[in-house]
């Protein structure tokens, strides 16, 4: 089920909220059980059979958590359980997501003819598998960064709720167990937070439905065209539109997830922080899909030694992390290359850090450099093959012999100019910028009329935004699902 669907907005969400709050807050366990059942229903709506997989993941990891807890004093036994847990979780991920890719490549490499299985990918498998791993590892580590003790859940419903909680189930953010461990058993729902969650949800929905989906129309029109028939201007437009589409889609989903979480009393961490204003690729990745970056840092990079074992080991660790980051996004060489592509730039930045003399223009130049690296990266990410990405980038650089500008470009710009401007502006913290430059609105609390006008506008913006979003959803506008690979 998609958040941006009428069945979610008009059936699932109101029923779920109504019944959830019908249960008195003192019955926390019943509320959790209800949320788990609804979450499984939410998941089953898209692919009923894979609920079995979800249940297996919940039960399996619940048992692993208990076993780790039991053998906590025995390092070898708990490590053994941890290894089995990793095999259990990653083999599921491998089977559904990567087996066909591996067989295809083995066939190509050794000229074999092994039958490639056609296995449908369970939606969100990468997200919930990583969360499940996070749970057992956090229990294994026992103490989190704040010094709090993390124990295994005795109640399987709570493990289920952590793994399957519907707001972050299909598109993240990847919530680490230690973030919500306490909230599962003790959270405080209140109407203020609830309303703030609604606002956040409306904003996320608007990002996805109004901006991202309209950017998708441009990107898909261009990426689906034959590369020989489009102009240089069009391919640039396509790359920019895709960059905006994926940002507003992903961050919109994260906003919706965070908002929905708040409605049920959960506090999820932020997942995006205006990544397109970054001045280095490393900074971009601190602002983009923060939960994934943090997950890899906590569960892969640091355990490998991070940057504490010398320059070469650091580079190797980075290579492993970025290979895995790319591969996590999909079973295709394009994703792997995309991960390695970022590894190269991040490593270079690490090596050159402090060695390059910075001019006063460096801020602008580094911003342009970062945007270009990210933009070409998205081409690699979006393309169906490395060759296709190569041809696309060749055309962007004017090396494909394509014409400079064509009618498709004029059409797409004419039709979408307002969405494009809105998307570019909203991808930057313009309001914060205005505040810094003293170009901000101010309203005196003493003036009741001004206060009333301000409050009315404030409320209207959200309601109008929601109504516009609903108009797109009900009309049945283009609504691509970008996470089928994840």
């Amino acid at each position, binding site marked *: 089920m998609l958040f941006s669907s*009428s*069945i979610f*907005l*008009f*059936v699932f*969400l*109101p*029923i779920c*909220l109504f019944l959830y709050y019908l249960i008195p807050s003192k019955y926390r366990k019943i509320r959790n059980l209800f949320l788990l059942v609804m979450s499984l229903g939410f998941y089953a*709506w898209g*692919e*009923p*059979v894979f609920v*079995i997989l979800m249940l297996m993941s919940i039960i399996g990891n619940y048992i692993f958590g208990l076993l780790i807890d039991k053998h906590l004093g025995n390092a070898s036994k708990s490590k053994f359980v941890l290894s089995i847990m990793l095999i259990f979780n990653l083999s599921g991920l491998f089977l559904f997501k990567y087996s066909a890719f591996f067989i295809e490549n083995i066939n190509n490499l050794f000229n074999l003819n092994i039958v490639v299985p056609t296995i449908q990918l369970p939606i969100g498998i990468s997200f919930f598998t990583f969360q499940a791993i996070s749970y057992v590892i956090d229990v294994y580590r026992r103490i989190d960064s704040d010094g709090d003790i993390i124990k295994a859940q005795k109640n399987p419903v709570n493990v289920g709720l952590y793994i399957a909680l519907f707001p972050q189930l299909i598109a993240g953010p990847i919530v680490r167990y230690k973030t919500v461990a306490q909230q599962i058993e003790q959270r405080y729902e209140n*109407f*203020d937070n609830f*309303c703030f969650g609604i*606002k*956040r949800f*409306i*904003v996320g929905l608007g*990002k996805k439905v109004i901006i991202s989906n309209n950017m998708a129309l441009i990107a898909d029109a261009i990426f689906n065209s034959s590369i020989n028939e489009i102009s240089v201007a069009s391919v640039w437009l396509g790359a920019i539109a895709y960059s905006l589409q994926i940002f507003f889609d992903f*961050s919109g989903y994260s*906003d919706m997830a965070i908002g929905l979480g708040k409605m049920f009393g959960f506090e999820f961490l*932020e997942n*995006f922080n*205006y990544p397109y204003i970054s001045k280095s690729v490393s900074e971009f990745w601190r602002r983009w899909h923060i939960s994934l970056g943090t997950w890899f840092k906590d569960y892969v990079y640091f355990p490998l030694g991070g940057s504490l074992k010398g320059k070469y080991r650091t580079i190797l660790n980075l290579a492993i992390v970025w290979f895995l980051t790319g591969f996590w996004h999909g079973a295709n060489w394009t994703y792997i290359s995309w991960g390695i592509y970022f590894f190269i730039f991040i490593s270079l930045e690490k090596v050159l850090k402090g060695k390059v003399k910075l001019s006063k223009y460096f801020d602008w130049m580094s911003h342009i450099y970062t945007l270009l690296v990210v933009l070409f990266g998205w081409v690699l990410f979006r393309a169906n093959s490395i060759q296709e990405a190569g041809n696309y980038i060749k055309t962007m650089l004017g090396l494909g012999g394509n014409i400079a500008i*064509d009618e498709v470009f*004029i*059409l*797409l710009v*004419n*039709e979408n100019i*307002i969405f494009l401007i809105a998307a570019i502006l909203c991808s930057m*913290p313009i*309001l*914060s910028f*205005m*505040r810094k430059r003293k170009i*901000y*609105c*101010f*309203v005196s*609390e003493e003036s009741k009329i001004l*206060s009333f006008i301000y*409050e009315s506008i*404030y*409320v209207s*913006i*959200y*309601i109008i*935004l*929601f109504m*516009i979003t*609903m*108009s797109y959803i*009900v*009309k049945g506008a*283009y*609504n691509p699902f970008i996470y089928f690979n994840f």
Partner: protein
Amino acid sequence: MEYIDFNNYCGLIDLGVWGSMMKKDKIIGIVFLFIISFFSFKTLIESREFILKEIKKFDVRLGLVSEEGIYKKNESLKKTISQIESEFNNYIYNKNMFVELNGYIHKVLRKNVVNDIESDRTIIKDKKGYLHFNYGKERINMDKNFNGIKNISEFCQREGKEFLYVQAPLKIIENKTILPIGIKDYSNKMADELVKKLKGDEVPVLDLRESMERENLNYNEVFFKTDHHWTLESGYWAYQKVIERLRGCLDIENKFKYDDEKNYEMLKFEKHFVGSQGKRVGKYYTEIDDVVLPVPKFVTDLTVKFFNAKGEFIKERTGEFYDALINREILESKNVYDSKYEGFLDTNQEIRIVNNFAKNNKKILFIKDSFARPVAGYMSLEVKETRLLDARHFKGDFYNYIKKYNPDAVIMLYNPGVFKIAEMFEFY
């Protein structure tokens, strides 16, 4: 004095932390909850019957799924879920209000291309404000279309029947319709190719696009602004052209002349119709069409019989032209979104019209798309019997039908919008 902190989180807009933020948030929260609950309740009430029907079909679907084991139930369940979602979307309370709001937003944004979930149903607005579907965005090979028409034509020739292929126009008119830069439509090019091939093979063709060009018709009045069909007046004009062409062969009089006002009156319904294209964007994006129906002044007596896809008789209407051919409930409906074009002969299924006052025994068979309905309706005033068959619905054998019915003429009338529908040309 306090300023508004806009940078509360990485969202679109947050007018942030300020004195009575919680009060505003609560209003937003309450309004949001009211909206989703209201639409949830109203839509579930309206769609419940259809949703229950879909749930009951689960077992039927189970029998149709080819997968085995658990995947069998899974596939059936997925289809049921998909149908439930589709029914729910269809019956969303006040759906038109949302479509109209969406269309209005597109109008404010000056968008001339309104994308649709079905890409063939994307709406293109031309320079004069007429709406179009982009049927012909890709050029297809016309050989199959040509062969289908040629086969029927040759069969009619062998059977001693008159045959005429009538090429109806598309709303996108070559060199007249100005589409937004970057929108291509090859429909007319494909029609040109087909007509040229047919003429080259001596298949009788009447290209109404040429007739329109010759008579310098006001192109704006040929089609509805908001519907993909031509107007009923245009259908009436086309009937005159067909009769002119067939008069010599069929020996029939043309008593209902287009340019003779004694013969007809124009029944006008002002601001009455938002058609197939308009309803996808709502009435605020476009304009509401008038509907003008030429109605004979002389006495008529017609019997119209309607059949379903299985060839079973469904219903009958008898009376004067208006009573027999027109579905009053649809044509006179106050709801502008009701398809007023469907008010003329209701359906694309098989239709038989008998002229009880006919002065001859001529019979005509139309193999056609929906453009032919008004043409056939007016034609029925000239002959004893007129029948209409649509290859999308009629599943019998056309050759046997023609043999059995034994018409004096077979008229095949298609507009270029159907060129891609293979089943309309499958005559082997």
